[in-house]
């Protein structure tokens, strides 16, 4: 299968196979006007299978969102057909308006205009806690 290489844009590589649509949703890629290629189950020496997303337009990628979804994703910045930067991710310490608290007793459930803030509580389990009520969200 051939996917044209991109000239100026972003390639999200090493996405765990099957998770590309989740990345697509969290980054709101459906709102982009440029070509976006989602490659599922591509062959990977390291991972066996992986997903890749190619975005054919320069854009600021929310690294916190990506780091939350999967810190193993790599972000490649392409300019004039050449990779000029490769970013590695980490689990973000703080997430703002990425995930939302499901505790019906939390103030954010009653007053949804508040920022949804989650803090990393246990990196080993990739667990986050709501900064307001301490309810846990685990990936």
């Amino acid at each position, binding site marked *: 299968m051939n996917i044209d290489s991109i000239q100026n844009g972003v390639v999200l590589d090493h996405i765990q196979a099957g998770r590309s649509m989740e990345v697509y949703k969290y980054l709101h890629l459906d709102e982009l006007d440029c070509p976006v290629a989602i490659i599922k189950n591509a062959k990977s020496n390291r991972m066996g299978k992986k997903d890749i997303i190619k975005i054919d337009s320069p854009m600021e990628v929310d690294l916190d969102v990506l780091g939350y979804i999967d810190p193993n994703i790599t972000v490649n910045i392409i300019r004039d057909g050449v990779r000029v930067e490769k970013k590695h991710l980490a689990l973000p310490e703080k997430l703002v308006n990425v995930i939302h608290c499901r*505790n019906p*007793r*939390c*103030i*954010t*459930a*009653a*007053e949804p*205009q*508040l920022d949804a803030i989650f803090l990393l*509580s*246990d990196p080993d389990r990739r667990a986050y*806690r*709501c*900064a*307001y*009520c*301490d*309810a*846990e969200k685990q990936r």
Partner: protein
Amino acid sequence: MAKRNLIDITDLTTGEIDELIATAEDIIADPAKYAHACDGRQLATLFFEPSTRTRLSFESAMLALGGKALGFSSADSSSTAKGETVVDTVHTVSCYADIIAMRHPKEGAPFAAAQRSEVPIINAGDGGHNHPTQTLTDLLTIHREKGSLDGFTIGFCGDLKFGRTVHSLTSALSRQSGIRFVFISPEELKLPDYLRTGVLDRHGLPYAETDSLEAAMPELDVLYMTRVQKERFFNEADYVRLKDTYVLTPEKLLPAKSDLTILHPLPRVNEISVAVDDDPRAAYFRQVRNGKYIRMALILKLLDIRV
């Protein structure tokens, strides 16, 4: 000085808690010395949920420091009834007062309020989540009764799921040394997972869980009784089924240690028989009195007033 809030008991270091206890002890020894410490200062008590003890304790504390108190005691008598957000209400009041104590039924409301308040916010209880000034009260009481905050076995009994005082005190004691925890509750009201795994397991602290108060009693140095709170249940049938699970009576205290300290954040319904009140080990009314002194110490600290 940067604005300090007290939202969660862990906002204070153990050293700061020791200082607060020392100040409270000094206030108890010489209240006249503090009688004008807050002259010209105002405390706002914003109680979006009913309270007797906590609100009056805050107001009494501020009055004893020479300051003044204003506020409301139910959401119906504030602009919340018109749909104002908690953040806007607190932001507004922070233009009038020097410090705010707030209680709200929703968990995390004081944290939200503190983001926009111009003055220190004290969490006076947020739903079933936290109640740090009750914890300071509990710590002062334990310190006065036991002489130390280290090296004892404490049993928490009753509603450990929604009991915010239990959550805050457990967090606070997890930072002390030599504490063993015994959690006594029915299955439905067990300690939340975020405390069991996030605090106790994570720090390797010794604890046991049981549904039998009788079995736990002989090993306890401190017994912290709680009320099953009707207002925390969505389903009244569950409340009715669980509310009378534990009732402390003189008979149940027979196997207890002679120097046991019995605490309760109050109000009680029937979980401690009135016959226990005359037992010298019953410290819950001394605990109420201590609440005023530790809140005086806290107000002084957050307003950065030294006497």
